[in-house]
Structures are given as structure tokens and as C-alpha cells.
């Protein structure tokens, strides 16, 4: 079945490190935007087994999220996620979202250290984050994901361990731990804030992986960790090159064997009766794309999958020699990356796939 991604590009406040598409929230724009989403939802008229409201800050537009939910068709066991910021969650918004069928919430805590949150320019505190997780659980969300950020100013392996210890005591089922990448032309890039260097960031990442594993969050992707059975089914679709439809300004899709996206332009999206989709690539799946995404997973790339694309096991094994042995885990059936390997995954992927542009 298809997954559905709905992009809600509104934020109460832009974070200084963010270069994703978002605009300031206001009631009437959000209302009109939701109408446009609904028009598109009705056109596709699919049934979904995963739905993901991403942003921006969908929880800031929770009322409109609920309006969209009312128009969606989904399977009984569907995983339906909404992204939230700690300071947008109220009893009212949580209960409304829960009641309209949303069963998973992803909370952008980023850190449980106020010094780090401050340095990141987040508008909430560590206590706000903890409280929002508690409220969400009390409101009936029993599948709660928390975002952590790694490599932020003032961070150390110890401080990240402390954050993880705090969240492990709450009812959290899933953690996404992303390494901060300073994008050019963001306020953070201009702030002159001292970031941990390459080495320290690597240590922070390895410390996070170890700490999360010790609290029962198993790594299943470069940046994702879950209690058993709580892996994000929607995101897995991205990494397994399965179908997902994206609706909204700036949303991306892999649907009907084509990759396409909608221009990140709220006004244009709202004006058009149906979203204008820009196709990228040749259609189908190329080995390079498939491998690039699959190698993000701890399970890695199986040789059977390679052979499906016409790439022999011998070819992959030959290329594995170009990568240090402690970056890879090679079994009879598959090649995958270790935590050390994930740290340099861009390069590893290039070594393993470069020049193998085979299409299926």
C-alpha cells in the first residue's frame, strides 16, 4: 500500500539552522492551504497504510491537520504520524489529533540540555520537552518519537548521554538523532558559533549510538533508533524505495514509478486546483538510488537485491575492498555499514555504487 506524506510548511518561528521550506504560521493561510491539500487528497483517492504530517510544524496547524485527516482513507492498522514542537502541544491539540486518528507523534525536542537548546535558538526548554512528552502519553499517544540533534554548539559525548538518559525515563518508543549540518545562508552559519569539529562530532555520534542501544533503542538507520516493533513504517518506505505520495508545497513523491516534487511555493500551491508536479529522473529505480537508500539501513543491501539490478556479488565485494574493514559488516547475504561506516556513509556509498547506473 502507498504511504502519504503531507507537507505543512508553517512554523511559529524559524529556527536559525533550518534551510527547509517554511513560512510563518497564520490562521487564514493555514486554512486555505489545508483546503488545497484536501483537493489533492480527493483527487488521488488512495487508501494509505502510513501517513506522515511533516513540516514546518504541523502541530502548529493542528486544527487544519484534523480537517485533512477527516478526508483521508487509511487502513485499520495504519501508522499516522504528526510532527510537533514541544511548545505547540496543549491538552486540546493533543486530544483533537489523537481523536481524529493520529497514533504517532514525533516531538522535536532536539536536546535535554538548556544550554544546547539555547545555542540552537530553540524556543523551548528541556522541561518543556519533557512535559510535552508526558502530555502526549497521557493524551493517548503511545508511540512517541523524539528528535535529537547531534553536533550542536556546546555539546559533548557526556552531554548527549545525559539527554538520552532523560528521554529514556519517559515513555519514548523511537528516537531520530540527526547530525546538525550547517547550511550556508542560515543565521547559524553567520552566527560565528563554535561547533564541535569533525572529530568531536564523530565521538558524539558514536556516544549517542551506544547510549541509545543501552536503553533498548536499536539502531535501524543512520539516524534512527527504535524500541522493538516501533520502527517508523513510513520512513522505511523511503529507504526501501517503496511508494509514497507527497502532497503540499515542497513535498516529494515516489509514486506510480516516478519521482516528482511540488515547488516549495505556498501561494502557487494554494492557487492551483491540483498541485503541479515536477518529474525528476527517468522513472523506475536505479541501482545507485536503491543502494544509496538501502545502505542507510542497518540491515544494509543484500546481494540478492544487487543481482536483481544486474550487479554481481563479486563486483560489490571487490568494491568493499576500497572501504576500511571496520566501516562495513559483510555477511553471506548482505553488506551493511557499522556505526563507524555510517559516519562516512557518503563516501562509502560512492565507493560501492559509483558508475553502476543500472535501471529497473
Amino acid at each position, binding site marked *: 500500500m502507498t504511504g502519504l506524506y503531507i507537507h505543512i510548511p508553517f512554523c511559529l518561528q524559524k529556527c536559525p539552522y533550518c534551510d527547509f521550506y517554511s513560512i510563518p504560521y497564520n490562521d487564514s493561510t493555514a486554512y486555505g492551504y489545508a483546503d488545497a491539500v484536501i483537493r489533492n487528497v480527493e483527487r488521488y483517492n488512495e487508501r494509505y497504510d502510513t501517513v506522515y504530517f511533516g513540516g514546518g510544524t504541523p502541530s502548529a496547524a493542528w486544527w487544519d491537520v484534523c480537517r485533512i485527516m477527516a478526508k483521508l482513507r487509511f487502513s485499520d492498522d495504519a501508522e499516522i504520524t504528526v510532527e510537533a514542537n514541544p511548545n505547540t502541544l496543549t491538552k486540546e491539540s493533543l486530544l483533537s489529533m489523537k481523536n481524529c486518528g493520529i497514533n504517532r507523534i514525533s516531538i522535536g525536542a532536539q536536546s535535554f540540555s538548556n544550554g544546547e537548546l539555547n545555542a540552537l535558538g530553540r524556543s523551548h526548554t528541556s522541561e518543556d520537552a519533557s512535559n510535552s512528552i508526558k502530555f502526549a502519553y497521557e493524551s493517548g499517544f503511545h508511540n512517541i518519537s523524539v528528535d535529537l540533534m547531534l553536533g550542536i554548539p556546546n555539546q559533548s559525548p557526556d552531554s548527549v548521554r545525559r539527554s538520552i538518559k532523560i528521554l529514556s525515563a519517559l515513555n519514548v518508543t523511537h528516537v531520530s538523532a540527526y547530525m546538525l549540518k550547517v547550511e550556508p545562508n542560515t543565521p547559524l552559519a553567520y552566527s560565528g558559533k563554535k561547533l564541535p569539529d569533525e*572529530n568531536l562530532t564523530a565521538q558524539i555520534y558514536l556516544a549517542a549510538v551506544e547510549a541509545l542501544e543501552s536503553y533498548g533503542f536499536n539502531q535501524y538507520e*543512520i539516524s534512527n533508533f527504535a524500541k522493538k516493533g516501533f520502527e517508523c513504517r513510513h520512513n522505511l518506505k523511503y529507504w526501501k524505495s517503496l511508494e509514497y505520495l*507527497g502532497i503540499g508545497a515542497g513535498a516529494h513523491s515516489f509514486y506510480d514509478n516516478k519521482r516528482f516534487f511540488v515547488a516549495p511555493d505556498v501561494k502557487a500551491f494554494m492557487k492551483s486546483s491540483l498541485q503541479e508536479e515536477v518529474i525528476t529522473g527517468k522513472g523506475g529505480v536505479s541501482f*545507485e538510488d536503491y543502494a544509496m537508500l538501502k545502505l542507510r539501513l542497518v540491515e544494509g543491501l543484500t546481494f540478492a537485491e544487487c543481482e536483481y539490478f544486474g550487479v554481481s556479488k563479486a563486483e560489490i565485494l571487490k568494491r568493499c575492498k576500497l572501504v576500511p574493514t571496520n566501516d562495513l559488516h559483510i555477511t553471506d547475504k548482505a553488506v551493511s555499514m557499522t556505526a563507524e561506516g*555510517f559516519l562516512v556513509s557518503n*563516501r562509502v556509498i560512492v565507493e560501492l555504487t559509483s558508475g553502476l547506473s543500472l535501471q529497473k
Partner: protein
Amino acid sequence: MLSYPENIRNFCIVAHIDHGKSTLADRLLELTQTVALRDMEEQLLDNMDLERERGITIKARAVRMSYKSESGEDYIFNLIDTPGHVDFGYEVSRSLNACEGAVLIVDASQGIEAQTLANAYLAVESNLEIVPVINKIDLPAADPQMCKDEIENVIGIPAEDAPCISAKNGVNIGAVLERVIELVPSPDGDVDSPFKALIFDSFYDLYKGVIIYVRVKTGKIAFGEKIKMMASGAQFQITELGFMGATGLVPAQELKAGEVGYIAASIKSIGDTQVGDTVTSVAAPALEPLPGYRPVNPMVFSGIYPADGSKYNDLKEALEKLRLNDAALTFEAETSNALGFGFRCGFLGLLHMEIIEERLEREYNLDLITTAPSVVYEIELTNGKKITIDNPANYPDPAEISQAFEPMTDAHIITPSDYIGAIMEISQERRGIFKDMKYLDEKRVDLHYILPLNEIVYDFFDLLKSKTRGYASFDYEICGFEPSKLVKLDVLLNGETVDALSFIVHTEKAYTRGRKIAEKLKDNIPRQLFEVPIQAAIGGKIIARETVRAMRKDVLAKCYGGDITRKKKLLEKQKEGKKKMRQLGSVEVPPEAFMAVLKLDT
């Protein structure tokens, strides 16, 4: 009526770079109406883009002009434009031998420079009458009197009556021609003797084959006759001959003693028509060739490789085409474990090398990787044999060497006296032997050094320019081989020797060079998945070591909302970068690394 040969003047113009040689040539063409004004293009004789841009003449050229003098007589002028640079010194000396006089231009604001002197000496050696001309009198800093004094004091020729002109503004150009008539003798040479002509240039024409430019010394030759090249012995039948017009060749019936002209004879190979060779007629051959011919030997060698290995054949074709017009360029195929298939190319000097590389890149659209230039070494082996080495890869085992010899240059550096100290320091550092120092005037000095060619082949000129803020000028000529203590320095990446990075260096310099090259490579080789040890070694002995640490982090953490385009773009970029890299074992080396080591001191 033209009286032959009394009213013929064969002359060339010599000058330091940028002193206005080509601009004066243009004005002369205009004045004699050899070129209609509407066809006038800046620097007509420099018709390669590269020549116009860099303000240098690479190929010799000639043009014939008619002029009615102030006294009302008709004259024929043959102006032979010569390359100004020492790399082409041999061609220059051949061109000079085709003339009876040389116009020596001196920039009124700068005075005598290194090439002024080198060219003036060459002209004097060739027994040419020198016609000094002071150019650029329009410049605010012009000091014609200072120039005249310098010419008299330094070169030792009278200059008080030298015409003061502005070639740029067309001021006083006629005076130059009048002085040429007055000072330069008409050619002599018996028109009834056997035909002898000096080849001073040649170029390849797609339809006519090689066309040679000649100065007839004695006798005459006509259309249809058979000619012979005295050095190569090759014979040809003349299909066309004539004179050089400014915008094209003008066929004629015959060429006689004293004249300058061209001959086409369906000549296929430029190798048969070497500059300096003598042409004679088959019917009535001369017994002795004109003196002074020698084959040109390249002195500087470098490996040239296509950045994209699949362009090997394109490179080969391009080199073959360039050689059609450049007999001094040599190349042979070579293979490098680091760079793949390419060519070992020989050049007359640094400028020649730069020009060839630039022409390959511009005119043939090739991306090149070039190895550090090497000079030619002579090695006496313990078994008594003497070999020459132009490629560090072929350097013999030290145990087999009884004595190595390296080429030396006789170098002049002309500089404002403020920089004497700095220049002495760098010359010393480059193993220069100080010969003497002459004051040209109160402020400027001619420093005379013997410098090893291998010390100036890399970056000496750049260094000189930076130490003297561009005020010093530099010129050199090869003056033979001297015994030397040399070693071959190897560079190892990840424990493996990279042949393209090896070079030959003086023993005393080996440690410093080894250290610098290792440092430079460290800066130029990006971090990779593995740690990359860089070592410099002499024989088996490691003399320097650096390490490129393994990359620690290169990850795109987020694949947001199913947007894989960012990640794809990033990986595409990395793959593109990887394609450009040279894979040496498990180490990836960017092409810039091969270039960077060329410039170790800057």
C-alpha cells in the same frame, strides 16, 4: 624605378617584451600601405590569439613592403619579425642571419631590459647593423635621453640620433625607415653563383604542404626547378615561390640573391625543412652549406597526459598538428602508473613548454595533467657509457653512476638596484655562481650569474617577479654541462612510488625539497576513507613523511520527507569529483596535486 639590389633592405626588429615591437611593425605596414587601412588589425604579424594576448611573438614571420623614401627613391623592405624570447634563441639567430640590420627598440620609460641586451648581443654577433629606436615617448615617465645614454654605455653603439617615436600614436614612424635606409647596408651576394638560401622559418599549409621562408644568399631560383635541403638531403620540385605580402603570399617567377621569399614544393614533413638549413638547386648545387646550422635540441621535458584517459588519441593528434609548425617540439608515447598513457614532450625552454600546453588546452580543448618539468642530464656510467636522461623514471641506479652532469645557463638579471640583495639571495639559494655585476645607470644593474637550468625550470621567474615586484627582467641561455651531485627523489603514497612525482634534484636540496613536496601533497590530497601516508625517499631511504588523516565524518544525516534529491546531488557531486581523481592503488589524487608540486616555493 627600383635598383636591385641597392634599394633592398632586409631587417628585423628586436626588443624586450612589451617594448612595442609588434606595434611598430603594424605602423610600418600602415605607412608603406602594405596593408590597406581597412584591413588593419592590431599586431598583424602576431596572428596567433596567444601571441596577441600575451604580447609575445612565438613564430618568426616576414613581410615585404614598398616605400618611397624622402629622397624620392623606391625601396623594398623585408621585415622579419622574430620571437623575442630566449627559448627561441636559435630561431632568432637564424632570423637575424637573414638580415643585414636590426631595429633595436627601447621603451623610453623603462630603458634597457634583459631581453634588449640578449637580442642586441645576438644581433651584434650576427654582424648586423643596429638601428636604435626609442619608443613610447608619449608616456609621462619617458626619458629618451636616459635611454640613449644607456644604449651607448651598455651596448656600445651610437644612439644620439636614434629616432624618438610613439608607435602607439604613430609619431615619427617615417624616421625609422629613413634610418634603416641610411644605416642598414643593401644585401650583397653574387646572383650568378650557385643558389644558396637560408631557411629561417617554415609552416604547414594544408594544400601546399610545408612552405619555407628563405633568405637567398647567392644565385637565383625559379618556378619549376628542383631544390635540395643540404642537411637532410631531401629533394623537391618547386610548385610555387614568391614574396610575403602582409595578408598573404604573393607568387612570383623567381627569387634572387638578397631577396626574402617563400618556396612551396609539396614538402610533406616539416622535419625535412629545419630552420637553419641551406637550400640549394639540384641542377647547380652549392658545395658548402651556409654556416651555423645545427639541429635544435629540446632542453626541458615534461610528461603531458590527458586528464581524461579516453582523450589520449585526441592529444596525440593535437601534438602531431602542432609539430607540423613547430619542428622544435618533440614527443614520444610514455606510460605512467599514476597517469596512464601520455607523452614525454621536449621543449626548447619554459616559455615554449607553457605555450604548447596552453595551445593544447585552448586550441584543442584538452584538459591536461603535466608532470614537473625535468631538464636533460648527462650521466657517465661506471661501465664507461655516457647516457642522457630526460625522464626521472629512467634515472639509473646510483651504484651505476660514475659522474652526473647537469645543464647550466648563462643568465642576466636586470633590476633596479634596490633589489640586488633579494636577487643575490635567491640566486645563491638556487646554486647560482655570481659572475659580475654592471651598473646600467645609477639605479639599474645587470647581474650576471651562472645558474643550473634545473633550478630555474620550476618557478625561478615567478619568484624573481614577486621578490622585485615585477621590476626585474631575466634572460638566459644554455652554456653547457657541469659535473653535479644529483639524486632521484621519489614520492610514495601509501607505500607505493608514484612515478609521475619523481624528480631529479641536487643532493644538497634533496631534504628540503622532499619535505616541501610532502607538505604540499598533504595540502592537496583530500581526506579519504583510509589514512594516506606520504613519504619522500631517496633510494630506499625515507627523508620526509606526512599523513593525510582518514576522514572522520561525511554523512547526510537526514533524508527529509522522502526528498532524496539533496542526497543524490551530494553523491553526484562526489562521484564527479571522484572521476577527476587519479586512482593510485587505493589513494585518490586530484590532478592539482601534480601541478602543486611544481611550485614549491610560492
